[in-house]
């Protein structure tokens, strides 16, 4: 197992083999039944666009335009597959690598880069997209997700059988499962029957630490101790990710309580652009997973059923190119925000210390302008 990931891949729900052959699954076929060729092509399209954007962001970091980038390369099936199972009444709490999910929630991808260019810490309106801000403290948002789900239940948005029923999906990684907050989130979610789906993208590494540093059992097994039903899915199989998320969301929206999904995937890129994965993993490891590329897999399947015409491929390529250009132009056009903004929204109501320090700083800044005027 050392060559291709530290934890067993046994028991994964899979609807596409890694070469793109459709295999049936007695339980989960039903949850992918609504995926016609158009829907599958849309998934492939979204995965392709997000990967193109991810490459562009990595390039921009290398060119010095971004301070840091967190690549999502390799996790497109887990993110787009699950993201396509969401509806407007659902709410998402991402970690910080969920650019694919952000795309499915209507966030304009270049906007994410405002964070990584250092303009601001949050870059979209969470409630407008049903997509909370990125949380950088590992696992801290699992509690926010649970609380939000508890509140949805109180607000009558669960278990009515109407389309207004919703659930929360909380994304985090294999490393986060060791955090106390994640355990506490599962305790609160379980005892309150909160409509929350914990979606673990087990991408095999927490920066350099393999998942065996976090657990001696598959991460999905963590659910049992909390009384939370769980499932392991092939995280590089977009169909399977869609199907298990559909199942989980139906459970949660119905009022049956929380669900845990472990999506077994692989972070094909570095943890961030500051990381060097050659220090802790092998070429053989990377080659094994390159053969399991999530986009190539779905592409092979679509071609095998004659549903990926060349013009769709060409159109997606053109869209990626266009998005890349738009991203570059946007990023390079962003100026640093006015200095005074660092004092804004510290509190919702005025606070004497902030007001006094801001006033001092403005006087200080003006003193230079006065000197220049006199020079």
């Amino acid at each position, binding site marked *: 197992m050392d060559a291709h990931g530290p934890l067993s891949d046994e028991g994964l729900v899979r609807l596409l083999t890694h070469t793109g052959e459709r295999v049936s699954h007695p339980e989960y076929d039903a949850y992918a039944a609504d995926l016609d060729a158009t829907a599958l092509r849309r998934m492939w399209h979204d995965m392709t666009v997000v990967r193109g954007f991810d490459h562009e962001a990595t390039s921009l970091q290398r060119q010095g335009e971004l301070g840091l980038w967190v690549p999502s390369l390799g996790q497109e099936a887990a993110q787009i597959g699950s993201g396509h199972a969401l509806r407007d009444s659902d709410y998402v709490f991402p970690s910080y690598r969920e650019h694919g999910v952000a795309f499915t929630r209507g966030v304009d991808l270049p906007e994410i880069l405002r964070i990584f260019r250092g303009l601001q810490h949050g870059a979209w*309106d969470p409630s407008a997209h049903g997509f909370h801000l990125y*949380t950088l403290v590992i696992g801290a948002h699992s509690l*926010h*997700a649970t609380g939000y789900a508890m509140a949805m239940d109180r607000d009558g948005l669960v278990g009515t059988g109407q389309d207004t029923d919703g659930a929360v999906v909380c994304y985090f990684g294999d490393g986060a499962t060791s955090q106390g907050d994640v355990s506490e989130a599962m305790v609160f979610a379980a005892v309150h029957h909160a409509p929350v789906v914990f979606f673990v993208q087990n991408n095999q590494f927490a920066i350099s630490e393999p998942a065996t540093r976090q657990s001696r059992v598959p991460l999905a097994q963590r659910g049992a101790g909390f009384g939370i039903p769980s499932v392991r899915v092939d995280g590089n199989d977009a169909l399977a990710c869609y199907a298990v998320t559909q199942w989980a969301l139906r459970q949660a929206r119905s009022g049956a309580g929380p669900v845990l999904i472990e999506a077994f995937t692989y972070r094909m890129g570095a943890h961030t652009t500051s990381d060097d994965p050659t220090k802790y993993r092998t070429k053989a490891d990377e080659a094994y997973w390159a053969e399991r590329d999530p986009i190539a897999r779905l592409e092979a399947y679509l071609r095998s059923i004659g549903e990926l015409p060349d013009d769709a491929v060409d159109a997606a390529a053109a869209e990626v190119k266009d998005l890349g250009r738009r991203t570059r132009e946007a990023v390079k056009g962003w100026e640093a925000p006015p200095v005074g903004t660092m004092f804004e929204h510290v509190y919702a109501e005025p606070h004497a210390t902030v007001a006094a320090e801001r006033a001092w700083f403005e006087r200080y800044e003006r003193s230079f302008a006065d000197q220049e005027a006199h020079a």
Partner: protein
Amino acid sequence: MTTMTLAGAINRGLRAAMDRDPKVLLMGEDIGQLGGVFRVTDGLWKDFGGDRVMDTPLAESGIVGTAIGMAMRGYRSVIEIQFDGFIFPAYDQITTQLAKMHYRSQGLLTLPIVIRVPFAGGIGAVEHHSESPEALFAHTAGLRIVSPATPQDAYDMIQQAIASPDPVLFLEPKARYWDKGEVDVSRVADQLEGEHAEAAATAEMGRGRVAREGRDVTLVAYGPTVRLALQAAELAAAEGTDIEVVDLRSISPLDSDTVVRSAKRTGRVVVVHEAPTAFGSGAELSARVTEQAFFHLHAPVLRVGGFHAPYPGSKLEHDYLPNLDRVLDAVDRVMTH
């Protein structure tokens, strides 16, 4: 006017806030049927039910973190942390999430959460049950930190804290829970039912008050040390020293204007709190007075407080805590400098 204990005033204040706004919830350990280990929530579970007076799992980070998520859907949670020393499992949620969400979202998200903490010592308790951690939180922008010293302030300020759109740490001087006082319940009700209630309540909660006027020394206190400061002032008066006592009420923001105004008249300042003096709120206040009233001072600003040692076993706590002798010693020193 009604006579209430400080704990009873908080209880009545919570009830009034829950009556006023159905989105107000109480969360904490043992706050339901039991009414909290200090009985501050006594009777509320019976009248409002378990959905609004929630006995939570025993996990402080979990309580604060889930309250944050609930606040994103408009709920106003009032959390009880059972004892000061048990707030630390929630330290990360409070300082990296609760304090910063409004800033991170550029004002799109507000988290009107109140964290009630029975704090400070003097009750003969075991380890972790007598601490004063205010400075650890005051260093974090985004939090408001207040501490009432009287039943009237307890009644008013708990409701103002709940009405404020910002997160508030509400530090309750547990040794003073059973002090009685007269409470006017109508004034805060008028404020909170009037126009711009959130702004008015937040602003008032952040201001200190002159608890006793005097000419010679400004003695600054908050929460559990206000009574001590007033007692010291009485004793000093008998010896001819006229002490002005300022009850800060709020640590963040710190109403240094009220203290500086007083210092400019008296020229002498002593700050007394139970928390360790090193890097404490007294140190901050001392710096501000020095910066803003330097040429009015007749003596250095002195601090009286806990030591840079863990809170000791209860047989030694009255030597650790500031007492009348140590406060009066500091008063003598600024008078004779």
